[in-house]
């Protein structure tokens, strides 16, 4: 069985206690997107300020568990200053990290051959976000971790056509 230390890495608790980029942005010009998890009531609001296809500013508000909130905080740090393109790639990588593990869990064999490849790759690309990979051992919490990312993704879609 997975232990608490897999889930609550120090860096996660740190982001939970001291969330980065917390707050809001005037909207417009910023895009405001809400996401929420109907099952547990977690809410994330993402404010995106995109200029010339670059995420020049990004703020997070909302409430929720340590996983959704720290994931949002880490995401904000990782995405701020990146191009829309790069941000999209990050969303993909992060979701792949979550779903690859999900697939592994389904086969009940985390050491299945071939499973390590893409996983390590993603973890590298994601930097400190890789700390969240322990979440996949707790399937109900995956939705918490991906909530801010799905919300961001929606926001990127909204700004996408207008700025690029």
């Amino acid at each position, binding site marked *: 069985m997975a232990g608490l230390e897999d889930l609550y890495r120090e860096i996660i608790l740190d982001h939970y206690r001291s969330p980065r980029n917390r707050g809001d942005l005037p909207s417009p010009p910023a895009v405001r997107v809400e996401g929420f998890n109907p099952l547990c*009531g977690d809410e994330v609001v993402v404010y995106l300020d995109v200029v010339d296809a670059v995420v020049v500013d990004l703020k997070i508000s909302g409430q929720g568990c340590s996983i959704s*909130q720290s994931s949002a905080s880490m995401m904000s740090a990782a995405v701020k200053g990146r191009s829309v393109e790069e941000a999209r790639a990050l969303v993909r990588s992060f979701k792949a990290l979550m779903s690859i593990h999900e697939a592994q869990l389904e086969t009940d064999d985390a050491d299945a051959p071939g499973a390590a490849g893409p996983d390590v790759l993603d973890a590298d690309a994601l930097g400190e976000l890789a700390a969240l990979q322990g979440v996949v051992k707790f399937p109900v919490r995956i939705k*918490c971790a991906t909530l801010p990312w799905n919300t961001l993704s929606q926001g990127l879609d909204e700004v996408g056509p207008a700025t690029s």
Partner: protein
Amino acid sequence: MTGGGDVGATRGTGPERLDPRALRKEFPLLAPDRPGGPVVYLDSAASSQRPRAVLEAMDEYYTTTHANVHRGVYAIAEEATRRYEAARVAVGRFVRAPRPATEIVFTKNVTEAINLVAYTWARKELRPGDAILVSELEHHANLVPWLMLAEERGIELRFLPLAPDYHLDLTDLDRLLDGARLVALSAASNVLGTVVDLEPVVAAAHRAGALVLVDGAQLAPHRPVDLGRVGADFFGFTGHKMLGPTGIGVLWAREELLDAMPPFLGGGEMIRDVRTDGFTSNDLPWKFEAGTPPIAEAVGLAAAVEYLERVGLERVHAHESALTAYAIDRLRDAHGEQLTIFGPEPDPLRRSGVISFAFAGVHPHDVAQVLDTRGICVRAGHHCAKPLMRCLGVGATTRASLYLYNDEDDVDALVDGLAEVRELFA
């Protein structure tokens, strides 16, 4: 007391207190040697565990007597029918239904029972502009069916508010009842532990010409119910919260009402005759039981109520009241300011063993997660009562709920587990 198999379940008439530790021996999931590790099960408000007797009753039915009911001439089919109908009577008697053989309808859960009333009685009787009165503490099961109806038919939905003491505020009851045709009310909240004093509400509703539907999902498992005394017109409850199987719920309603209601689901069993151009409905209660009913589940539910009666509902109630007082005391003592309980003060009559709380600085999801690693099962979330969450000003709560098999050790485990939560998130 010796450690025999059903020590805890001696007939519930005596004054002795029940012995949860002995009872627990009859609940395989609660055994200390459970594969996967022992659990401290504090989530009976979501679904209870069930004693071996219930599983054995269903297995015995399936392995000796199963056949489809009501239509067979042969001995097994006759016996299956007899057991199914005997289960109806047993379940009806459990809540003192005046005419159990005709007034008890088996559904798949209490949610279906409430929807049945919404689709039949309410859609037949209510007119645009009529009002339905619910309360702010309803479970979605007793809210969404009325919201759907309100939207479809232009019915007004009104809310009995919650008072600061977590009881319903009845001050405006008479005004709220003006123009109301139905009051749909939980007998006991699945979030707050509030037990509603139904009698004044029923009396006022009837005076105002409204019928009363009571959602008894959180009441029937925990204390004696006497439908005659409750005075409601419709009463629903659900098997899996009262030691019974999943897949079965119960609607009780007064015979005259059931008689006048149109049928709900159409199919076998609920008809007397079918022609290519129409049909006539069957007698009560089968008119409302289309298709093959939950036969084994009815047998299992009958075994569950028999078990509860053997233990004694008075005793279950007394045990839970005492344990609730102990738990609230211990929690406050150990966690002081960090812990906020959403619910009334301990009170044997007006409070159940459902304890919802906030733990400052830690989200309920995280509380439940940490407790889980210690084998403690509590629920975190909105408990299917979102409007109530908005009243409380939170997105979710952590909820521990007690039943006959819980004891002080379980409460102590919770209190200790919360200490770890505090440390981890300090």
